[in-house]
Each structure stands twice: as C-alpha cells, then as structure tokens.
C-alpha cells in the first residue's frame, strides 16, 4: 500500500478519533469535574460533609476505575444503543469512552482540589462566602493548573482507549490499525498509524504542559 492509498483512509480515521476523543472529553469534564469537587466537599472536614453521599459517590468511582475498559466497552452496549441508537462506529464509541474516563478524571480532580490550601477556604468563609463562593472563587481557580494537567492525562488515556474501541468496531485510528495493519498484514500502514498516535499523544501533552505553565503563578 502506498501513501496515496493510505492518505484518505488516514484522514477520515483521524477525524473520527478526534471527534470521539473530543466529545468524550467534553462529557468527562462536565460530569467528572462536579463529581470530583463533590467528593472533596462531602468528605469529613469539607463544608458539605455528608458521609453517605461521599461513600456512595466514592464507591461508584472506584468500581468505574477498576473495570477493565474492554469489559466496559462490551458491557455498555445496551446502554450505548439506548443513547446513540447504534453500537458500532465512532459515535457509539464515545459512550464507553466517556463512561470510562469520568471516574478516572473525577479522582484526579479530587486530588487536585484537595491540594488547595484550607486557609483560603477559611478566608472566604470569614468574609461571608458560602460553599458556592468557595468552589467558584477558591477551589476551581486555585486548582486550575492541576485540573488542566489532570485533563491532559485524561485526554491521553482517552486516545489510548479510543484505539482499543476501534478494535471492536468503534471506528477511528484503532479500527484502521486492526482492519488494514493487522488483518491485511499491511505492516507499513500499521507503522504509520502508530506513529500518528504517538504524535497525537505528544502534541496533547505539550499543549497541556504549555497551558499549565502559563497558568501557574
């Protein structure tokens, strides 16, 4: 297979990978961030301490974290069908990707938010701020560099997961690697795909590091 044959396939697959990783990242951020903050707020010593909520959310996160992604991919098929109406293609892959990444990111958020000095929280309480003010004015802005670093890690994990999803009909670069590189013994193509994945991950890491450096004071 020469480059002219590979190029259009590669182009489409790259778009698909970026789409599924992008959407999964967005969903992960929207769900994982509040979950992680909730874990800190409801912990003992937190302003909303609530042992029941903390234990339940913590348990869900732990279960989500310990399930191997391949199992999740298969186990979620009925749920995926219900959400996007199909269980194959990149659209279908976004569901297990997000579900797998949410607990991962939530734990990272938790530890990032825990790193914020408790004295700052106390200062906001002393000036008459409530829990919402603490979250919005202190916890999130002060933890922002750490939250961003955590997001970088999560996106990279998602790129890896997306390739895995591709092997079971999820589309994207992983799908390409399996159907051409593996099943048709196109070693050259396989190498090209792997190189592209490496470049993608490196790019994400560099962008993430750059943004974190810019934010740190």
């Amino acid at each position: 297979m020469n480059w002219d044959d590979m190029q259009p396939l590669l182009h489409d697959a790259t778009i698909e990978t970026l789409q599924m990783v992008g959407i999964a990242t967005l969903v992960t951020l929207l769900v994982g961030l509040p979950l992680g903050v909730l874990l800190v707020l409801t912990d003992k010593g937190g302003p909303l301490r609530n042992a029941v909520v903390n234990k339940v959310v913590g348990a869900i996160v732990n279960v989500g974290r310990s399930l191997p992604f391949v199992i999740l991919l298969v186990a979620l098929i009925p749920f995926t069908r219900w959400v996007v109406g199909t269980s194959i293609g990149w659209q279908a892959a976004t569901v297990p990707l997000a579900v797998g990444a949410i607990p991962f990111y939530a734990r990272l958020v938790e530890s990032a938010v825990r790193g914020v000095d408790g004295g700052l929280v106390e200062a906001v309480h002393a000036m008459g701020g409530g829990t919402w003010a603490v979250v919005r004015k202190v916890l999130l802005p002060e933890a922002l560099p750490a939250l961003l670093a955590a997001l970088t890690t999560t996106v990279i994990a998602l790129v890896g997961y997306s390739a895995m999803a591709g092997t079971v009909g999820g589309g994207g670069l992983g799908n390409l690697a399996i159907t051409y590189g593996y099943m048709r013994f196109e070693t050259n193509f396989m190498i090209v795909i792997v190189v592209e994945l490496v470049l993608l991950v490196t790019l994400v890491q560099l962008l993430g590091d750059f943004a974190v450096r810019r934010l740190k004071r």
Partner: protein
Amino acid sequence: MITTKDLTKVYTSRGRQVSALRGVDLHVRTGEVYGVVGTSGAGKSTLIRCVNLLERPSSGTVTVDGVELTALPGGRPGSAQRGAGRELRAARGRIGMVFQHFNLLSSRTVRENVELPLELTGLGRTERRRKAGELLELVGLGDKAGAYPSQLSGGQKQRVGIARALAGDPKVLLSDEATSALDPETTRSILALLRELNQQLGLTVLLITHEMEVIKSVCDSAALMRDGRITESGTLTDLLATEGSELARELFPLGDPDSDLGTGRPGATVLEITFQGDSSSQPFVSQLARTYQVDINILGAAVETIGGRQVGRMRVELPGDHQDNVVPIGFLREQGLQVDLISPNGVVA
C-alpha cells in the same frame, strides 16, 4: 463591641474529648486594640475563630456589634460546622479577619484579592476597582495592584490581607497571629499600620499573639490565656498597677527572679517597684535613702513605653528581712508607687 459569655469548646478526636475553651468571658470595648496572649495550645486561636463562628462553640454566646451571632441560624452552639445561614454570612462580612499565613489567592492579582469580598456582596465592577484601589493606597501598596502575591514580600502580603479584611467596611478586625510569620522589623510596621487603622477608622481590633512585644506595642487592653481560660485581663495601665499581675511581669520582665541577682543576698528584702506617669518624675530612691538611712542596692531597672505611656520598673534590695522594711515599703507606696515583694524563691509574696 465584642462580648463572649461563658464560651466553651470541646473537640472530640478519636473518642477522646479535649477542651480548648473552658468558659471564656471576653469583653472588648469599641475602638480599642485588645490583645489575647498565651502559649500555643492555650486556646487563643480557637477563641478568635469562635468570634466570627468559623469555629462553632460548644456552649456560650458571642455578640459582635450588638448582634448575637450564636443566636443566628446556623450559628447556634454545637450546631454542625457546615451551613452558615444568610444572616451569619452577612455578619461575617462585617467582621474583617487577617491570618498568620495571609491566605491570599495565588491565582489573583493583589487588586483582585482585595476585590474578592466585594464580589461576594455583589458590588459592581467599577465600584470594586475603585474601592480596592483606595484600600491598597490606605495600606501603602497602591503601586502593587497588578502584582501577584508570589511577587510580594511577607509584609506586603499581610498588607494585602489587611486591605482585603477592610473591604467590607468592618467595625471589627480580628487578627489571628498576623505578625507571627514576619521578621521583627516587618512586624513593627504591620503593628503600626494596625494602630493607625484603629485610630483613623475607629476600628476595634482583637488580636491574638504569643509575643508580648505585640501586646506591648499596640494594645490598649490585654488578656492572658492559659489552658482554655482567661486568667487575667484589663487595660495595660490597670494591669501594670495590679500587684502580682503575671501579665505585667511578662510585659516588663526584669530578668529571671530565680537568678542570684534577682533574689539578692540572704537576709535581704527584694522589692519590685513599678512607676508610671507622674510618679516617674520623683527621686524616690534618694528620698528613701535620706529619710530612712537605708542602703539601697539596685538589682535591675528598665523604662519602657507601654500602651503609649512611660512605665518604669526597678528591682531593689533592702537590708534586713520584711519586718525590718515595713516602714520604707509604706513610704514607697505612699508616693503612689506600686511595690511588689519578691520572696527568696522568686514568687511574689
């Protein structure tokens, strides 16, 4: 301005109960600088945090500027730490607080840090900027508005902390060891600023510290805290005039009374004479020597400015035991001097 009645605080940690406050009655008058001093673990930090209910007392009441905070929703003694009600939060907004470690947000500029409490009260953007600018001028940091806290020295950070604490136009400022992380010179300048704000704005200041120097240089009144209780309190002038006052002794140490120098020779009587204001102009030593023909040996002496007043203290040794010296001691007391008798083991008799 600040009154606490029979305040107690019991912590439970791992099934064990620890009393941090054992019935504290504090009374801070409007416009004064009141210092609570004590060793670490005496409960002073718990006390100041109970004043704005950052820490909920186990029992007792806290009243600040006529509002009984412990009667507000979410502020009742023993109520859970979380969930301050709207009124309590509003009341906290009118009490400024500065912290030992400044507690400035590293992600915000100096101006934005000062604006934070104003954001919480919902003040408009331009108003906030104007007010923050004024406050920064007031604390002498007008040129640092755009800097980040990490670019400031400790003293500058604390000035920002003070400006932020003043943003809500408080009548009361709580200072939780505000100078303990600063070097002596910076400490002096921060204390001078607090004094200035106290006088300019009529601000009532309650501060806690473990340094007598702080009490000596800015406070009008002081309380000594020990093991969860206030063992002594009053204006500095009154404390210094109180015989056997531990606080006065610590404010104005004349060396260790247990040392050889402090107790004098066997068979002699050691006195500590404190004089303030008018009495410091009298030549009482020579008067005493002339009138009663006693040989006075001066063991130590110092004059200091405490609470804006000249106060002197002298430790002298008179020959003979206490019985022999009843008349000279009476003479000294007649002169308006405060005389404390030091017994040989260093304890005030």
